[in-house]
């Protein structure tokens, strides 16, 4: 139990630091208009919380993580809103992807427990929701729908790339949790 709390706390801090120290700088680099690089990986924390985590805890930690990212990105409320949305959607996506024999409540939605195919489908859907909401709220108007969709597409690709790297670098933690 306490192991899980420690593990998730570490993951929280780790993902947060990657997001604000590495990915934020990456998105600020001058790509000379050639390509739009932005990647969001901090929602992975919400995605990988153990299945039995109470919904309230998920929502509160999602809000906290979102606000912390917002403070770093100077986008007060934007990441918090998206992250709370992702946290709110998580139980429904989990119910949608529930295996025939049901979940083991001690497991986490991870490659180790659920398999790579399952994990990437689950992650792709929630990240898609998160990133689309992110750019929609960023533009705050459907008028820019083309730009919103383009940005969502590229950011989705980069985010999924970095998420894959992370879950494949640390397969151990994935297996244990």
């Amino acid at each position: 139990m306490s192991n899980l709390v420690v593990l998730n706390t570490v993951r929280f801090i780790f993902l947060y630091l990657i997001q604000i120290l590495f990915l934020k700088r990456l998105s600020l680099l001058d790509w000379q208009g050639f390509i739009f690089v932005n990647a969001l990986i901090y929602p992975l924390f919400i995605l990988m919380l153990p299945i039995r985590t109470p919904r309230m805890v998920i929502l509160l930690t999602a809000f906290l993580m979102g606000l912390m990212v917002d403070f770093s990105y100077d986008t007060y409320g934007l990441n918090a809103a998206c992250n709370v949305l992702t946290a709110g959607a998580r139980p429904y996506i989990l119910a949608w992807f529930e295996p025939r024999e049901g979940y083991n409540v001690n497991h986490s939605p991870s490659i180790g427990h659920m398999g790579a195919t399952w994990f990437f489908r689950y992650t792709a859907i929630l990240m898609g929701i998160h990133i689309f909401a992110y750019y929609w709220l960023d533009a705050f108007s459907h008028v820019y729908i083309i730009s919103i969709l383009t940005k969502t597409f590229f950011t989705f690709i980069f985010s999924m790339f970095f998420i894959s790297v992370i879950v494949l670098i640390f397969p151990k933690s994935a297996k244990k949790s």
Partner: protein
Amino acid sequence: MLRGMLQLFGAYGASLLFWLLEGLSLVLLVQNNPQQSEIFWNSWGILTNVVEARMDGMVDYIGIRADLLELQTRNIQLLEEKDNALYSNKAITGSVDGDSILQAFTYIKASVISNSVSINNNYLRLDKGREHGIEPHVMGVIGADGQGIVGVVNATSSHFSQVMSVLHSQSRISASIKGSGYFGVLVWNGIDPELMQLDAVPKHAKVAVGDTVITSGYSQIFPRGIFVGTIEGKPYIKEGDNFYTIQVKLASDLSKIDYVYVTKHEMQDEFRELEKERNE
């Protein structure tokens, strides 16, 4: 009680928390980011404008009935000042007579409460009757703008009256062609509620497409010169016939008529007197 509330919170707490946090995030977003804040307040302004406009519309609609009645009264005043509603008492030109102009026609406003155009013999019902001065067989009904003929009153009760529509197989309205003065009888063949037929126009008359057809005023039911419609399709004469076959496109759309005026000839009694004299 407390237990129940806790249970309720247990069941719906997560959803509540979700909306609370989501709302909080959006408030932060709108408050702290200039672009989002501008778009939000702009949209809010548009939204409130739309709501206010709707409300204004509803309030207007409540007041519109009173406005309408006032307008009808004004309209009647104007109609009654027109030449075709007046009777000139002057016999010798230049004579100065205080009572030289008499009111020949007056108008009574009414609302249509039932109507039909789809059968061969159509009738309308009006919300005014004997108590408002409406009499059967001698009064006509015209459209709300003072143009277009609707029918002839054929029965009254104390508060309602029945009108034989011009779209009736027995309807006969005397009408003439504006300008040339040739006249005929308007009848309806029961086919198209927008088209009536002008019969009995002699074949030596000059008739062209687009000519204006007006009431002749010969029947004392309608004042002279009320716009009935225009001639549609080229008038022609059937083989061996002495009269034109003329189609008249009606000015008023009888299938959507709400308000009308009933025409009343103030000297109707004198015509009755004439009839009596003749019959004796």
